[in-house]
């Protein structure tokens, strides 16, 4: 790994530098706004990706957690004049708590039950936002403050979000490459095998689900301050579907795939008008095509092509166990 990871690392740094300097080479403020929106969605998707892409728990209701983060920020920073930084942290924390409350009963349920529970959760949040009008502004919504200088300008706000998105990406990548990531993939692909080596399936699912709640809460707060005004119309169920589709299309079990998926699916309808007309239908068609043709996602498609291009190993060597080495290996790891 250490040898081959140098190239992607250099690539990541180059991309990051390019993104960090965007305000200086972007054509206009609209592009910066779009980039900031992508960053907000990605902060949520990065956490959700651990749940959906790695852990295999199909949550289609994260828009509910996003709304909770957004409203928490708007209420705390806007109405109660908390410092935006503390309100941001509180939004993430509240997202995590709500993730815990949703995950505790629902993560024990089988796949379809879980998906329906998350969808119902999103609907309940939407319902409560309207019902608790005194707190949330009801249908009228709430205006949301921004962050203090130097993050007040659009470029500053974008850089703040880019910074947070970078940290979240780094964290998600760490989780993915260390034993946690493997255990999550095992829970997704083979829960029975995961249990057999001692993976505490429910606890891990819950841990990443709570983490995804935190990122959803953070994303909600950042998104709300980017929008500067939130109403219930913003947090429709289709948005939850959108996050989900970003991951599936980008590829399960990958970080770069869903990142690319989020960026492309956010920007594409803005740039290609006919796609915008189709709206959610477009996501449905895309999802169906990916599930039927490349169920591992478009990211995996590239990986497979790269593997094909690499020189094939000529004829598998014979599987020949070496008793002495095996014994040495076993004795070496013997428990004290």
């Amino acid at each position, binding site marked *: 790994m250490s040898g081959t990871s140098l190239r992607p690392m250099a690539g990541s740094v180059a991309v990051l530098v390019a993104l960090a300097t965007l305000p200086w080479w972007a054509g*206009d*403020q609209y592009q910066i706004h779009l980039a900031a929106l992508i960053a907000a969605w990605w902060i949520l998707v990065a956490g959700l990706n651990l749940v959906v892409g790695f852990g295999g728990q199909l949550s289609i209701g994260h828009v509910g957690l996003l709304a909770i983060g957004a409203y928490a920020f708007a209420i705390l920073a806007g109405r109660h004049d908390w410092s935006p930084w503390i309100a941001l942290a509180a939004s993430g924390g509240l997202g995590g708590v709500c993730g815990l409350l949703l995950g505790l009963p629902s993560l024990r349920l089988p796949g379809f039950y879980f998906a329906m529970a998350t969808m119902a959760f999103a609907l309940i949040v939407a319902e409560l936002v309207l*019902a608790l009008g005194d707190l949330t502004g009801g249908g009228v919504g709430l205006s949301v403050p921004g962050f203090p200088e130097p993050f007040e300008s659009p470029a500053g706000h974008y850089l703040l979000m880019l910074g947070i998105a970078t940290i979240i990406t780094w964290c998600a990548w760490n989780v993915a490459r260390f034993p946690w990531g493997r255990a999550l993939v095992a829970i997704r692909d083979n829960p029975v095998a995961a249990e057999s080596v001692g993976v505490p399936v429910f606890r891990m699912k819950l841990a990443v689900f709570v983490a995804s709640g935190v990122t959803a809460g953070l994303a909600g707060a950042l998104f709300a301050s980017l929008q500067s005004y939130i*109403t219930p*119309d913003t947090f429709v169920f289709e948005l939850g579907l959108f996050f989900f589709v970003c991951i599936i299309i980008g590829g399960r079990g990958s970080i770069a795939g869903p990142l690319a998926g989020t960026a492309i699916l956010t920007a594409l309808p803005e740039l290609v008008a006919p796609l*915008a007309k189709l709206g959610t239908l477009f996501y449905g068609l895309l999802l169906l095509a990916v599930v039927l043709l490349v169920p591992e996602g478009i990211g995996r498609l590239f990986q497979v092509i790269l593997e094909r291009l690499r020189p094939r190993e000529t004829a598998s060597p014979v599987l020949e166990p070496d008793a002495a080495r095996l014994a040495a290996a076993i004795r070496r790891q013997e428990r004290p």
Partner: protein
Amino acid sequence: MDFRRPLAALLLSLATVSTAWAESPIRIGWLSSLTGALSSAAVAENQGVQFAVEEINQAGGIGGRKIELVTYDTQGDPTKAVNFAQRLAFVDKVHFVIGPVNSGESLATVPIVAKAGIPNIIIGTIDELVDPKRFPRAFRAINTNRQWITSANDYALKTLKKSKIAIIGDTSGYGTSSAKTAAELLEKAGVKPVFSTLVDPNKTDLTDELAKAKAAGADVVMPWSAATGLLARLLNARGDMGWKVSIVGHPALMAPAIRKLLNKPEYWTDAYAAGYVSMTAGADGKLPAATKSLVDRMRPKLGGAEIDFMFWWVALGYDTVHIVEHAVKKAGGTDPAAIQKALETTSDLKGVYADYTWTPQDRNGFPDVGVVMNLADSFKDGTYRAPKAP
């Protein structure tokens, strides 16, 4: 087949854009939810906007400058609306923004357009949309929600002389806030509603709600919802129950789409909705001259037959462009500060939909006298009749 119309409109707007040749055109951004839920108002308004732009351009533009219309379909999604508002402000660099159509979207875009310093013609009814301090260049052309509600309340209390009021709102954002405002305004008038409830806009049957209102002794039911399906079910429930009670409320009560949803046509009687003086035929059956003239001019464009949607939407769209024309002429250009100055000193600007007055303190241009109650079932050729005095 509803989606074809906005598509055609979009193509038309593209054509307008490409044929505009004047050296320095006046660019108007038009945020319109042409598709998605609640698109019918936007589609109609778009007809008016397009028509006004064409007329003005054919007549040589505003002071020789052609109008260039940049239309974006927000699909009723506030996130998309914000994106497009940013785009209008920073990519297209428009001189004016009209819209968006839905209040939810407007609430999100108005601060952005205000921050960019661009004059914004508001066509959403929610009160919070205008604020001379925070959004000094946002001017409302449409009436406020309050104006609708006040008219309806007055009609129920003073004209019908009913005081036991049942308020029914829907659980959407618009419904909840309107129902709340209605109750507040009633209480200010010294009347406490005898019954008040919120209903899911997709609820299949309202018999139960009406039965409860009846049990509470209501003598008038005031629905505040823009969901025609829900309103039709309300009318049906009243008719099926055989309850003789007046219904007074939101303009959607008189939407032509309701007719098809009613069990019996007569279920639509004894229902009154807030409408417009400009769209109401007088005792002689004649529309105001400006309205009549616009209807006649536009009829060929609208297919030549009877108009089957609410014409006030078209008139509102038509007027927004003329407000822009007025402002540019008065300001002698498109300098935003001058435009602001011009509009806030505008008094009694004649329009089709209404006559507008803005002041430095008040950004609501629509006059209180412009709203009038209509008979819900009086729809004909896009316009309405007022109820006879009881």
